[in-house]
């Protein structure tokens, strides 16, 4: 009991939830534990994992980013528009990918500057940006999906494998490794933790608080862009409504993974496990034929539950 309590205080509810869910699903549905399904879970996790990594950076800085959802959609539209307008497939792909990631980075930059320099609440800014990005995506695409993209995009970035491992999984692993390095071994990471934990103390220690806060949103934007490109490759079309669930799911994943909404606390590994948990949950519920409406209810509850447990953990630490 004491051990369980210690684990809870240290890393949060995540391990308990994950074990409980896996047990539940493997009992309820024999297909859940099959190799092909597990691979499927792995592949699906990658997209959420990358966005969660970005989301986590903003949460560490005591903010969050709601715009990740339609920033993905905007990326998807920009990427596909550029790709269909260039003839040579290789050039088209390169330009499209750069344009897509660039767009999302710009969205992040706009978020970052507004939040850091004008000190507006991240909630308002990124909520507004969510609408802006969605509107732009719909405007550019006239609300219809864009097809006829180079085939290699789907075969390489979407379905391709290197050394037997799906490309998206490799990309996600590389990103997670980089973010891990950033957070644990570089100045930037330390500064994120410091300014999220106590902005004033960080400022007095000579940390360029505004610059680094903005940087967190920029990085979040870039990672969102990468996700947007890879999702576009996966569905082989530009979709103006892609990623609508991402804000909720990425925040939930980070928080369940022990990243504190108060800022300054959390690890990338935890956040990634949070993403795994959410995807596992979705997958298990799909297998059990639970309607997507009910799934929404469950997801919302899960987020609230996670935040409550986070608060509870804080009080246990103190006592």
């Amino acid at each position, binding site marked *: 009991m004491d051990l369980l309590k*210690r684990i809870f205080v240290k890393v949060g509810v995540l391990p308990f939830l994950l074990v409980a869910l896996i047990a539940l699903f493997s009992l309820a549905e024999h297909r859940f534990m099959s190799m092909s399904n597990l691979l499927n879970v792995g592949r699906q996790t990658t997209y959420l994992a990358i966005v969660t990594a970005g989301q986590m950076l903003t949460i560490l800085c005591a903010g969050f980013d709601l715009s990740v959802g339609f920033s993905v959609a905007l990326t998807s539209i920009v990427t596909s528009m550029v790709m269909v307008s260039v003839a040579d497939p290789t050039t088209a792909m390169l330009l499209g990918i750069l344009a897509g990631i660039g767009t999302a980075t710009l969205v992040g930059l706009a978020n970052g500057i507004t939040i850091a320099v004008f000190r507006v609440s991240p909630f308002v800014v990124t909520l507004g940006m969510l609408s802006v990005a969605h509107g732009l995506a719909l405007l550019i695409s006239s609300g219809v999906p864009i097809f006829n993209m180079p085939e290699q995009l789907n075969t390489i970035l979407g379905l391709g494998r290197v050394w037997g491992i799906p490309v998206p999984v490799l990309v996600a692993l590389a990103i997670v490794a980089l973010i891990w*390095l950033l957070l644990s*071994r*570089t*100045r930037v990471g*330390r*500064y994120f*933790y*410091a300014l999220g*934990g*106590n902005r*004033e*103390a*960080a*400022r*007095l*220690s*000579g*940390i*360029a608080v505004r610059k680094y806060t903005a940087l967190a949103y920029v990085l979040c934007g870039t990672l969102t862009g990468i996700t947007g490109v890879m999702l576009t490759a996966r569905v082989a079309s530009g979709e103006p409504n892609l990623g609508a669930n991402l804000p909720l799911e990425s925040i939930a994943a980070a928080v369940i993974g022990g990243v*504190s909404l*108060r800022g*300054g*606390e959390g690890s990338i590994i935890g956040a990634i496990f949070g993403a795994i948990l959410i995807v596992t949950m979705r997958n298990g519920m799909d297998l059990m034929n639970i309607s997507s409406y009910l799934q929404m209810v469950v997801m919302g509850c899960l987020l609230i539950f996670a935040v409550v447990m986070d608060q509870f953990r804080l009080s246990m630490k103190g*006592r």
Partner: protein
Amino acid sequence: MSELLLKAENITKTFPGVKALDNVSFDLRPGEVHVLFGENGAGKSTLTKVLAGSYLPDEGQIYLRGKKMAFKNPYDARSRGVSAVYQEFSLVPKLTVVENLFLGRELTKHGLLDKEAMLRQARESLEDLGFDLNPMAKVGGLKRAERQMVEITKAFQEKMSVLILDEPTASLSDKEVIRLFELIVRLKGEGVGIIYISHRIDELKKVGDRISVLRDGRNVATLDMAEANEEKLISLMTGRDYEEIFPVINTTPGKVVLEVQNLSTVTGLHDISFKVREGEILGIAGLVGAGKSRVGRALYGLEKITGGTVIMEGYAVEEPTPIGSLKLGVMYFPADRHKEGLVLCRSVRENQTMAALPLFEKRGLIDLKREESTVRGIVKKMNVRPGRIHKAINNLSGGNQQKVMLSRGLTREVKLFIFDEASCGIDVGAKREVYLFLKEQAEKGAAVIFISSELTEVLHLSHNIVVMHAGAMAKTMPGKGASEEDVLSACFGYDYQNICNNGDGSQDNGSVVNSIEG
């Protein structure tokens, strides 16, 4: 012998990995001040938190007027007459002073908040305590000393039989301290028992009736104040022989490091001019609100400068900013470690190196090994306990947190130190270490601005003393030969002798700060 008011028997309390209280017994008589004394981390605050219902003890019993009690929470304790002022505050920053004072026990009229009555009562209480505070001010915007006042006022408003004061004077200046002591005397007359914690020994002798010394979570002695002298207390506290607290600082000031001419700020400082030289310690004294902190803040770039010049090593600084100041070799330590000094949820190590990370970089990455060994060295040198550098700094006792913050000055090269209340909340042993640290830095040639509301230390350490009054410099005097009275009369802006004679019953308390002899 009167009945005991409060009695605690064999209290034990452990935190993960630390036995904060080990079989401690403690009692309190009505109408007495029982002092708790001990090193940082000895368990004083933990004991008071157990007594006031914030922590549940692992073992042991608490009796209130002979009846066994188990407080479920601080609210429960308060409703039974145990009221507390904690070392780390429990105010809501977004609310005003009045709102905080009445939090949880708001006055109502016909079911609506009776704002006028609350405001009136708040004014009365503040006035009663002699605290010069605007009751409508937001607590978040107040200084540490002012928040301390709100916290004290809050406790004094309740009907109580036991009052716990955990380092109430840590950032107050003499004016408020004198008043606080008068009120303590009044409460004693009403039969209230007071548990009083402070690291200022001279103060303890004035207010205390009995004193208990804690060391490593154990109660090593309980004495009558009359039997206790400084040497005895310190050796009981440390378990070692007594050592002189104030080191002799033998430096001859050299080149001018910082020169300030006619500085004024938006916050109301004006006509500030002084020089600090290499190896010189410039003390800044003054009452709360006199502007002594603002001088430090303005120089570091935390307050907008509206006029005058700041010349650092011959280079005129247009508009100081923290980043720029650090680059010029100015290091500032804020008075409020929680608000501006430390990132509480992060580790000791990260807090220690926060302002000097670039120095630990190798090819863009932080050299964790070197960082760790540096931090371990510093933690050992400053005697931070427990020295577990990967643990969140929140788990350290107040004084140890302070030491970690100050030791930031050891990780980079500093030409000018600005300390604002450097010894706030640290024990006598640690104060000595801080003073030695000052001495070492001054002897290495650093200039030091030492802002403090504890007059004794300003008098003992400074080469020169600037006394602030109402946002301006009231007086500048050499530290050698300056007497407490000189400084105090400048502090109050008029002849100090006067208030002593006007003070009711405070004549012998008149000078709250006696120099520590020895």
